[in-house]
């Protein structure tokens, strides 16, 4: 229990950010028209690819071979998420733009 409180005190700033981000996320999305649901889902999908930063950090400080292999894999998967996500979203949106 003490640990959890410790964590709370040490990370107050981050917890504030979490709460504010939750409301921000809701606010930003709530007026989206149905036609953009698919591209929006795909775009959001690309943004959570930010997990790649964690993968880079782990890989950057990996010392054992096992950690290296897992880290390498994590970076590949994270990159897939980021690149695939943004490219596919762009492809979808490109089609909306084609107007005469």
């Amino acid at each position: 229990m003490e640990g959890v409180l410790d964590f709370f005190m040490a990370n107050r700033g981050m917890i504030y950010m979490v709460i504010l981000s939750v409301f921000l996320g809701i606010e930003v999305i709530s007026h989206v028209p149905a036609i953009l649901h698919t591209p929006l889902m795909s775009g959001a999908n690309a943004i959570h690819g930010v997990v790649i930063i964690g993968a880079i950090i782990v890989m950057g400080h990996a010392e054992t071979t096992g950690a290296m292999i897992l880290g390498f894999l994590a970076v590949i998967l994270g990159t897939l998420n980021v690149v695939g996500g943004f490219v596919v979203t762009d492809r979808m949106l490109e089609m909306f733009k084609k107007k005469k």
Partner: protein
Amino acid sequence: MNDVMHFSAGISVMEISYILASVLFILGLKMLSHPLTARRGNILAAIGMILAIAATILFHEKEGKPIGNIGWILGAMVIGTIIGWVIAKRVRMTAMPQLVSFFNGMGGAAAALISMMEFPHVSQELMMRSGMANGHVLAILLGLVIGSVSWAGSMIAFGKLDGKIGDLRIKALRYVNMTILAGIIGFIVYIMTRDVAASAELTHLIIILFVVSVLYGVLFVMPIGGADMPVVISLLNSFTGVAAAMGGFLYNNQAMLTGGILVGSAGTILTILMCRAMNRSLLNVIIGVFGGGGSAAEGAAGTIKEITVADAAVLLSYSKKVVVVPGYGLAVAQAQHICHELDKMLEEKGVEVKYAIHPVAGRMPGHMNVLLAEADVPYEQLVESDEINPDLPNTDVIVVIGANDVVNPAAEDDPSSPIYGMPIVRAREAKNIIVMKRGMGKGYAAIENLLFYNDKTRMLFGDAKSTLQALVSEVKAL
């Protein structure tokens, strides 16, 4: 707490980059929710991502040590970029939902891997002070569980949408799932109350937790099918967001935190909006067993009346107002281009043609819009189902192409039907109804559709693309 820390110039640049990246993510999402700015929004978010990644590689430090293994990191990124780029560029537009699910799974897996690797490295000082029950361990365990569930679930969703995996509809499964979920929570508590000294030996417990989470992810998605699939993908999407945010806690990394939480909350709202479009509660989607026929619909079937292509062409050409209801069948047959050709031809003959877009037509909300946009159908011709419904009694012909559940009157008439309450396109109110279908198979939700037996309905069996082609040449000949 010592608030005075010693920053190197690099760290400051990194932190500023993270702030910029967070702002770009928010702006990007905001712009993504408006049709005119959507594409720029996506690019802004991508720039934010590049900034965050570059800053991490260049300036991140852990206990004074910079990022090592740079060759390996860049190598992995090149491999990921090539694979991701090629898949994203080559996939057919109809396969879009699976693809989003696949990329989402990759993110979830990355989050789970990070947690697994970080578990043995929780700071000893923290462990000594507060035992296993500390925030870092909690963030790691949650990141692992949520990431694994998201990965496994996304892969199953991918397989299902791709037609490789069928639904598993067993009622008992929901109790199994609840038991596993309770087990996972119990297991987290168990790990966190263990003795610190044993932490090294806890690694195998982490692996068990991973396996159980994967099992849960699989079983969680297995029974869900039909129209609920997009909801699940959206939900898993927000799961991965939360898993990424756990990494943010772990590394005290603001870019991961804001990016992850933003997607987590926006994804949850999007999920709820989708549920609302189908008039189902989220809980129902998660634990409910969807599908199966509405009892009243069985046996109530009348006779099916067919129409020839030639007659259909005449009927359409001499109408004033035609409404097309496209569904997934149209997409599968790749018939969106030929469909647009037909509508252009009819418009030349003075027929007013509109498309009725149901929010969940296709396999994902907005999926139809993407497909029709691909075929250059002007934006103004696409009308949402709520807006077009009052107009339908004045519509001469409604053409249902490869759609089924979104025009099923059972949603309004039959309280025992699984889709009861879902808003539909009220096709039966039009003066004439033409239904193009491959055969008499049931829709994705496996429910009987009484619209097909309606007196005003004429069936046009066959592959959507070749039928439409035949229609085009008939209309041309008139």
